[in-house]
């Protein structure tokens, strides 16, 4: 059994072929964030993203499913904002996400992403999947 599963945390590291400032803006500029946020098939409508990148500022994204118009809202508050290298935000459930950007010196940027998931957030997701399954069974 993985430690990751037990601790409910996730680490993802990516290297982007772009300077750090550009990757930073992808996170902190609402219009740019709207171009990539969410799974494939989920889009952020115009004005659907609010990114007030300063400590205490709001992070809110409303995504709409292409196929059936379902909506999903992600809401969090910025805890730390250190341009252009470090972002920390916390959701209402107590889950905390950290984004760290490192300039690799050759025009590329390494992004390290880490998130913890609070139990209540877990419960909420469990409830969602339970409702989804219930909906599937209805005629």
């Amino acid at each position, binding site marked *: *059994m993985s430690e*990751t*599963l*037990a*601790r*409910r945390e*996730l680490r*993802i590291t*990516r290297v*982007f*072929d*772009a300077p750090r400032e*550009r*990757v930073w803006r*992808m996170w902190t500029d609402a219009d*740019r964030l709207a*171009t*990539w*946020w*969410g*799974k*494939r098939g989920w889009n952020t409508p115009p004005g659907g993203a609010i990114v007030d990148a300063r400590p205490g500022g709001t992070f809110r994204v409303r995504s709409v499913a292409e196929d059936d118009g379902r909506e999903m809202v992600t809401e969090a508050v910025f805890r730390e904002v250190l341009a252009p290298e470090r972002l920390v935000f916390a959701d209402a459930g107590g889950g905390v996400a950290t984004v760290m950007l490192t300039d690799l010196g050759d025009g590329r940027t390494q*992004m390290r*992403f880490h*998130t913890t*998931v609070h*139990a*209540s957030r*877990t*419960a909420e*997701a*469990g*409830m969602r*999947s*339970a409702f989804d399954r219930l909906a599937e069974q209805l005629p």
Partner: protein
Amino acid sequence: MKTGPDQLSTTFQALADPTRRAILARLAHGEATVNELAEPFPMSVQAVSKHLKVLERAGLIARGRTAQLRPSWIQADALREASDWLDGYREFWDESFDRLAESLRA
């Protein structure tokens, strides 16, 4: 297995303890009694019994009702449920970051 709104929380809380994970790892090899489970741990049978109760409540194990020794065995469904949920969460970020890379190229 019945999955209520709080089932996943209970499962993750049960999995958060290293002793309980070790007990599960042992049960993955086959059923065992409380005494057998207590053997490798520097703790009393009563303490192991408490851990088993937590695991049972989380739906991660089932225990015999009749025999005095009450063997325990693993219930794979709850574990899969928890793992599937985390996979879904990972998928969200993986796909988002794929799209982020595409946006940077555009």
